[in-house]
């Protein structure tokens, strides 16, 4: 669809904004509506828009599918890793309070890392879903 000039230019303008907004939703989740899942979906929407405009082959060159598979596993690993780390520090599984000296600071660190893992997994899984539904040519 590169020959649709309006669509191409508007998308070029929007894709960075979509990704910036995804990061805002990700890291502002403490104070407003948001969180890892929503941020992951919005971030993947940026990739999907690129794939819609320039074709899935070009998207495959930009975002490597095998890298996406590794990232989706890495997000789950981060989630479980925080849980195991809090177990090793003497608390229960996913008890963030023991992650730092101050329980509130520990909870902040724990929820940020966990939400980042969720966002990573969701963004890469959504991109993989787009690869699966768009036929390769």
């Amino acid at each position, binding site marked *: *669809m*590169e*020959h649709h000039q309006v*669509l191409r230019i508007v*998308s070029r303008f*929007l894709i960075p904004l*979509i990704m910036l*907004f995804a990061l805002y*939703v990700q890291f502002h989740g403490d104070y*407003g*509506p*948001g969180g890892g899942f*929503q941020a992951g979906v*919005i971030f993947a*929407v940026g990739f*999907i*828009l690129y*794939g*819609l*405009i*320039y*074709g*899935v*082959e*070009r*998207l495959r060159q930009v975002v490597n599918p095998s890298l996406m598979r590794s990232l989706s596993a890495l997000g789950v690993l981060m989630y479980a890793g925080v849980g195991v780390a809090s177990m090793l520090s003497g608390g229960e599984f996913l008890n963030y309070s023991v992650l730092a000296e101050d329980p509130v600071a520990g909870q902040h660190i724990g929820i940020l890392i966990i939400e980042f893992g969720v966002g990573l997994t969701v963004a890469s899984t959504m991109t993989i879903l*787009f690869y699966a*539904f*768009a*036929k*390769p*040519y």
Partner: protein
Amino acid sequence: MVEFTILLILLSMLLALISAAIGETVYDKILAVNIFGTITVLFIAVYGFVTGRPDFLDIALVYALISFVTTIAVLKFFEYGDMGKSSTDREQDIDI
């Protein structure tokens, strides 16, 4: 006053849905669904201010972004029959 606005927005959402249901071609239907999405953005924003939660503006922004991409995706699917096609692929098809 704001409640009246919400009522009017809900009414126009209903009208957009009716026009999507009775639209003759697929493009009429897509246009109606797009209008529905735009009105929904308005609805979320107004509803957030009525309930005293301006945070809802974030959700309205997300809705606007995703409904834009959805419209492009649906239109592309009806035009080319596939999501991942690029125009260079199309030229190759014409050569064959």
